[in-house]
């Protein structure tokens, strides 16, 4: 019987944060920090002929002005990934080329914000403005080459061909797709487009630096990847890693947007050169224009099936837009296949390939879903198109063709993230239950496909199934250290990175479950490169599964140590000695944990008990979900309202049901936002138009009418206490489920996101004209 897992408990940091206690990066900056501001490119593509910094340097209060001339040319990638990174090393701290509006030109460090901003105005930059590549469909082999620097390179083969504007490329196939398509009764061929999406975490990217009393560089950073940040800063500045400490305080959201290095390199350079503390808080405009957004993609997808509704072949060509730099280019691309197409594992053949191209737009990077949301939209829309053509019920089609417990897909072995994958069988896959329960929650039987409301409005329901992963096998490593203290409480030190999702809370619960002690007895400290053991960070839905397994192992080890020390104290054999969380006992002899601890630290057999362990996955058990949407379409205006969204998720055991639900609900709303509201829009010259919260619209409370989230009863034995990960799965299903619902309501197929009233109205008018002609 589990005591502290699958157990409701408020998050351990919530109380202090709610009261506004200093916890986030900028709350912890040195009072007298130099303010670092960056001059950013007004051009989408330009060469910097010269920068005159004399006037800026002469301004009182300016400490330092940095340009590309102040840095050795060392190409790095800002992507916070395992090493060697599967992203091209194509970025310099500062360069003599700027490749998107908002790219870094120069940095100023001054005593206050006003002086720094004034100094930026005094910088005189002579640009040679170049013709930009703004259309990603014209980027490949364009005569304009975005990255022509001789130093840039890939760390291992990722299909990097910068002279052709290709950051990465990939091709895989299973079976003979051409042959199986020929043998199919029905083949559909459709092109889908997904747009760039902005993360809009509430806390902007923030970092500060200081030199400590030992002369070491200490960074506080709002990051998802503190250990990768230490490594990348060391590489970029050729500064010893041993002299850098990265501390991740509380983080105000990330969603992938902080799985990278942004201000860290410049702030470090300023503090190392001046010896003074410095800080950088991105403005909201900088967060939009000068960090990352989601990779826009084009999918050309063919599906082949037999009359009886058996899916036979999947053929997909993808073009992905990585913007000005190639962070996460290959891996996001691969996830658009590897965490999507195993959903239909009974096909004869699959082909998946294409390119990731550079353009002169804000770079794309990691974003919750990480390719899977894009691929899911294309596949699950195409499946409904196929069902419509075959006159097959879309739910029955999925039930017939989808992956089930005990089954596998050859894709798992072929496709990893940047490398080959790992074969695995679905030990847990409750998709069947998720679909059935979702149908009940949305009342599918009574509502499918549509209901005319009689006032020009039509309601429709639609659905999609989805999957994700639980970390990257044989790559993502997490570790944990548990220390017993006098008086019998514990410290849990983890590299795992709590960015608001609540990992500190659930990792304490896992340790508490193993040790049978109340979670309040476990003091968690996470993500400090000097004090906590290694962890890759918060990404790839890895924390619950990978870091959670590391915590469980360390806690199990600690329990064994307590039993051994208890047996020694009681003068009894270890065998037959037990620890129930309070007392170590053997027959009628017993000692409390408190007494044992005090004995260990003050009285007899003195020693410190510390247990440490780590975990790297040997597979990546996917969480699954079924998503059901009900929409109401106004046939006069094309306006869509999401009436209801029901999601049923199989993520194994929910360590904290409330936090898991929060992950799914938050993911759903971001997926709904991407489907219906959010779009990163550029002007004709490549300037981002949607660069503020006023112009880039994320859903508010008013847009979210009803969300129903439930979990399937599921236990993954390879996970900690049966858990799989749950960070990303929630975002994947809304684009396809909502657009399928729109089709079922009014017969209009949305092939490019986001949905707009205009697209629907145009579709309705087209089908009316068609009707009139017939």
């Amino acid at each position: 019987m589990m005591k502290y897992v699958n157990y409701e408990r408020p998050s351990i940091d919530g109380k202090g944060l709610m009261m506004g206690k200093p916890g986030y990066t900028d709350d912890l900056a040195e009072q007298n920090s130099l303010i670092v501001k960056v001059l950013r490119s007004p051009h989408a593509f330009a060469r910097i002929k010269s920068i005159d910094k004399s006037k800026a340097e002469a301004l009182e209060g300016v400490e330092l002005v940095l340009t590309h001339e102040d840095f050795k040319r060392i190409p790095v990638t800002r992507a916070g990934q395992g090493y060697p990174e599967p992203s091209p090393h194509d970025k310099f701290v500062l360069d003599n080329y700027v490749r998107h509006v908002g790219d870094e030109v120069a940095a100023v460090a001054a005593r206050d914000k006003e002086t720094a901003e004034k100094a930026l105005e005094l910088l005189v930059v002579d640009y040679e403005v170049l013709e930009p590549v703004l259309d990603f469909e014209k980027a490949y082999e364009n005569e304009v080459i975005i990255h022509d620097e001789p130093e840039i390179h890939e760390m291992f083969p990722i299909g990097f061909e910068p002279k052709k504007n290709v950051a990465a490329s990939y091709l895989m196939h299973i079976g003979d797709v051409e042959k199986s398509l020929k043998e199919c009764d029905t083949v559909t061929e459709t092109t889908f487009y997904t747009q760039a999406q902005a993360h809009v975490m509430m806390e902007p990217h923030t970092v500060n630096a200081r030199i400590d009393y030992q002369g070491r560089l200490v960074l506080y950073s709002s990051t998802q990847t503190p250990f990768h940040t230490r490594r990348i800063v060391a590489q970029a500045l050729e500064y010893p890693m041993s002299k850098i400490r990265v501390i991740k305080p509380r983080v105000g959201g990330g969603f992938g947007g902080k799985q990278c290095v942004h201000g860290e390199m410049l702030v470090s350079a300023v503090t190392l050169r001046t010896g003074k503390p410095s800080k950088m808080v991105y403005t909201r405009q900088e967060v939009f224009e000068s960090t990352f957004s989601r990779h826009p993609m084009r999918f050309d997808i063919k599906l082949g099936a037999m009359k009886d509704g058996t899916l036979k072949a999947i053929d997909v060509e993808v073009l992905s837009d990585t913007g000005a730099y190639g962070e996460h280019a290959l891996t996001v691309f691969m996830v658009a296949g590897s965490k999507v197409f195993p959903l239909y594992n009974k096909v004869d053949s699959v082909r998946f390939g294409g390119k990731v191209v550079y353009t002169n737009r804000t770079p794309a990077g990691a974003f919750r879903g990480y390719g899977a949301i894009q691929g899911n939209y294309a596949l699950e829309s195409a499946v409904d198109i196929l069902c419509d053509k075959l006159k097959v019920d879309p739910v029955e089609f999925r039930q017939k063709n989808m992956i089930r417990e005990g089954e596998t897909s050859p894709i798992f072995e072929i496709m990893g993230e940047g490398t080959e994958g790992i074969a695995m069988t679905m030990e847990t896959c409750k998709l069947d239950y998720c679909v059935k329960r979702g149908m009940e929650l949305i009342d599918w039987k009574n509502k499918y496909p549509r209901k005319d409301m009689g006032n020009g409005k039509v309601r429709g329901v639609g659905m999609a199934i989805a999957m994700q992963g639980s970390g990257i096998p044989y790559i993502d490593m997490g570790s944990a250290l548990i220390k017993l203290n006098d008086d019998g409480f514990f410290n849990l030190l983890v590299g795992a990175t709590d960015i608001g999702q609540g990992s500190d809370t659930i990792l304490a619960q896992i340790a508490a479950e193993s040790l049978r002690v109340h979670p309040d007895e476990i003091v968690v400290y996470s993500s400090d490169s000097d004090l906590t053991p290694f962890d890759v960070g918060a990404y790839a839905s890895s924390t619950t599964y990978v870091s959670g397994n590391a915590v469980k192992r360390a806690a199990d080890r600690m329990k064994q140590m307590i039993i051994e020390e208890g047996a020694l104290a009681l003068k009894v054999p270890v065998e037959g000695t037990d620890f129930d969380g309070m007392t170590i006992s053997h027959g009628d002899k017993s000692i409390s944990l408190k007494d044992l601890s005090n004995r260990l630290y003050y009285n007899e057999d003195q020693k410190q008990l510390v247990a440490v362990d780590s975990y790297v996955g040997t597979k990546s058990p996917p969480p699954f979900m079924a998503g059901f949407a009900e929409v109401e379409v106004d046939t006069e205006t094309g306006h869509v309202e999401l009436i209801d969204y029901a999601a049923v998720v199989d993520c194994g055991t929910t360590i904290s049901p409330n936090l898991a639900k929060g992950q799914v609900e938050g993911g759903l709303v971001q997926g709904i936002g991407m489907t219906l509201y959010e779009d990163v829009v550029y002007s004709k010259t490549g300037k981002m138009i949607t660069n503020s919260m006023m112009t880039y619209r994320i859903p508010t409370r008013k847009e979210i009418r009803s969300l129903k989230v439930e979990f399937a009863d599921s236990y993954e034995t390879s996970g900690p206490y049966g858990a799989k990960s749950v960070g990303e799965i929630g975002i994947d299903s809304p684009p396809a489920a909502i657009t399928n619902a729109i089709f079922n309501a009014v017969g209009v197929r949305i092939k490019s996101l986001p949905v707009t009233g205009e697209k629907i109205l145009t579709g309705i008018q087209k089908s009316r004209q068609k009707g009139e002609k017939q």
Partner: protein
Amino acid sequence: MTEIEFVLNGKNVTIDVDPTKRLLDVLREDFGLTGVKEGCGEGECGACSVLVNHEIVSSCLMPVGNAMGKDIVTIDGFSKTERYRVIHGAYEDEGAVQCGFCIPGMVIATESLLNKNPDPTEDEIKDALSGNLCRCTGYNMIVSAVLRAAERGKGLW
């Protein structure tokens, strides 16, 4: 520089400051009140919400000169009240806090709503909190938290 006098979290304060400086910066930098967060700097996200004479205001849009003679309450002061205790408990029990960055502003918005309307409907809550953005949650838990706070805090507002 101008001398600005106002009441901050129940205490009379005076500060010699550029009157065009944003109230947000004065609160964070000059008074060390870290509960006031900057999310966007343009009045869209609500993370910097404070109460000015009991009305909710985005402190990033208010020059400190306008604070002259006013009564200003931030989360740092509000968190010492019984009303806060009730709101806090409700947020915690509903699991409404994820990254927490929007929450001080959200709590201020909740106080501002309940102060005017102690028994709000779900729609009234959605309306009242629509100026405070959250990117982590699906908002459901926050709406439930406000409903629960209203119920538990009967008589307090």
